[in-house]
């Protein structure tokens, strides 16, 4: 069956079940009514004054009675510095547990070590919002038994609530926790800030273990994760390396190209009609998109604009803007550098939120639906304004869906920033290799060679032209770019589906086939 963007979607996939085709951004979200059953919280019991402390992670996992075919979840707040997921998988493997579904909120460079576990069938299914590096390559050539499911951050919460993901064991790192499992990421030697993703695992998993390198006196204050959801607590020497939270994607770029694109994007925002007091704003991590914040900051000061709130994906750059009074508050689901945790801890206007409140399409108050402006990156865009943030130039999995489609769907103005070409590879295509965010929810694409406005927004195009912005037809831009770069050879793909891209409402928006040649 074909979905709304013309992709052939299998009706059924062994090991994953029935699939629903994507039907449009809002088609499956019916007001005041959710057309699926939702799961109830696991009932648990614990007698008074019994200790939850275990002597090590192995003992805690044993007490959770792991079994073949179980679903294991972790959070990715420590990003490239995470030390807990690999420990968990290693312990389960040593116990002989197999056929595991891994449902980490995202997977990073810290998880390249998972490849051998895929190869031997210890891990057979993966649900996650991002896959990179050696793990991405391994899945791209077909080493995972069943196709990986790439969901958005909001979609993950929905997957928990509908039972699409049924977590049996959640091992959650915290930078401070007490003996009952009250836990936070806001302080301690390995502080990593918000625990917005982990909060969902804690609430809905059958067994929850808090792992911390910093066991504090009861009660742990403040705490995001609350004790009444937590089964066991383990003190370990290290939960990972909090200094590796900030990757290259979370700093302001020095690249003249990215700065130029960011400057243009800030001008687009300024003339969009939304640049006024009370504006809410989000920028994605990564090169040009984060740099937009730098120019927006200057423009806001110049025009005396005070914004309402920022959400994210919070960097120390965003914290600086909060402290300067440019925004009233920050809603923080994930802190992109360790320095942000101090602000989470001390600033009452820096509000930690769960991923449910951030982006779940099936609640009645997600922050993404209150967004005015979001600036997002792209690996590729196409003439229909679809955006790829998951597959690279060979068709390999090397990115993250993250909150891309969540924020794009909710924001009044969705701005995608990307260079027209990267190292000879044209970025504007007839069709992106993999659609993560549908063009229906993208308003403007900003490149160094012109700004493309979605034909569904003619008034916006007119406003920008009036302001002197170089507005170009995206088809013309594509031709111009290919004149310079040449047309790349077709990708060498197989016919095995290695991953499915799940839209935030649970439907399938695109499929990813195995790659024959990796560059």
């Amino acid at each position, binding site marked *: 069956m074909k979905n709304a963007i013309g992709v052939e979607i299998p009706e059924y996939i062994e090991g994953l079940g029935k699939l629903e085709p994507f039907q449009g951004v809002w088609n499956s979200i019916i007001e005041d009514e959710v057309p699926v059953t939702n799961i109830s919280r696991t009932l648990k019991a614990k007698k008074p004054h019994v200790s939850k402390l275990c002597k090590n992670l192995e003992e805690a996992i044993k007490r959770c009675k792991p079994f073949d075919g179980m679903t294991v979840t972790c959070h990715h707040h420590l990003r490239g510095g995470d030390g807990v997921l690999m420990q968990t998988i290693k312990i389960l493997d040593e116990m002989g547990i197999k056929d595991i579904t891994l449902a980490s909120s995202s997977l990073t460079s810290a998880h390249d070590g998972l490849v051998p576990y895929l190869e031997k069938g210890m891990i057979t299914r993966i649900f996650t919002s991002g896959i990179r590096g050696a793990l991405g390559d391994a899945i791209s050539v077909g080493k995972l038994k069943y196709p990986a499911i790439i969901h958005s951050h909001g979609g993950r919460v929905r997957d928990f609530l509908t039972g699409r993901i049924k977590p049996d064991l959640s091992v959650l790192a915290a930078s401070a926790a007490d003996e009952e499992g009250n836990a936070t990421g806001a302080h301690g030697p390995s502080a990593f800030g918000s625990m917005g993703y982990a909060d969902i695992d804690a609430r809905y998993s059958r067994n929850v273990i808090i792992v911390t390198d910093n066991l504090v006196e009861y009660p742990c204050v403040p705490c995001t994760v609350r004790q009444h959801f937590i089964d066991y607590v383990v003190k370990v020497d290290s939960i990972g390396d909090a200094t590796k939270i900030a990757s290259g994607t979370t700093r302001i770029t020095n690249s003249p190209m990215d700065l130029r694109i960011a400057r243009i994007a800030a001008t687009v925002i300024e003339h969009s009609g939304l640049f006024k007091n009370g504006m809410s704003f989000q920028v994605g991590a990564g090169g040009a998109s984060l740099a937009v914040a730098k120019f927006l900051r200057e423009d806001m000061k110049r025009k005396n604009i005070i914004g309402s709130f920022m959400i994210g994906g919070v960097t120390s750059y965003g914290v600086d803007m909060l402290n300067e009074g440019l925004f009233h508050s920050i809603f923080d689901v994930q802190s992109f550098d360790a320095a942000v945790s101090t602000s989470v801890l001390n600033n009452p206007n820096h509000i930690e939120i769960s991923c449910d409140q951030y982006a779940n399409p099936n609640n009645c108050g997600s922050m993404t639906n209150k967004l005015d402006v979001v600036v997002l990156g792209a690996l590729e865009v196409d003439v229909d304004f679809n955006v790829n943030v998951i597959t690279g*130039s060979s068709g390999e999995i090397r990115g993250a869906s993250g909150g891309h489609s969540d924020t794009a769907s909710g924001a009044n103005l969705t701005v995608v920033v990307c260079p027209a070409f990267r*190292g000879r590879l044209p970025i504007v295509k007839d069709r992106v290799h993999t659609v993560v965010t549908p063009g229906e929810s993208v308003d403007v694409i900003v490149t160094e060679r012109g700004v493309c406005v979605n034909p569904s927004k003619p008034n916006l195009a007119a406003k920008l032209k009036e302001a002197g912005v170089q507005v170009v037809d995206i088809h013309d831009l594509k031709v111009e770019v290919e004149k310079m770069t040449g047309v*790349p050879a077709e*990708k060498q793909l197989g016919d095995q589906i290695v991953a499915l891209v799940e839209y935030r409402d649970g439907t399938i928006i695109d499929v990813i086939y195995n790659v024959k040649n990796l*560059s």
Partner: protein
Amino acid sequence: MTPKFKAQAGTFESSDIMILIEPLEKDSGRKVDISSTVMLQFEEDIKATINQVLDTLQVQDLHLIAKDKGALTQTIEARVETAVKRSLGIQEGTM
């Protein structure tokens, strides 16, 4: 014409190409080795561009090594031309 010296042009920067040329014995023809970050997408294009420049300059008996980081055609042409002219001793430059 045949090269007299080892020569190079270009850098290892992104969007540039590094060209190395070494002279070969008479009647050895051309040996061209290419590695590129966009090999899968543009191998044939890069090969054709390099050979075209070598044809235009009518050079033979050389080993050309190209290390490409996604250079555009014009960049490749300029780097190859410069490397060839340096190897012929008709243009000054490094090596």
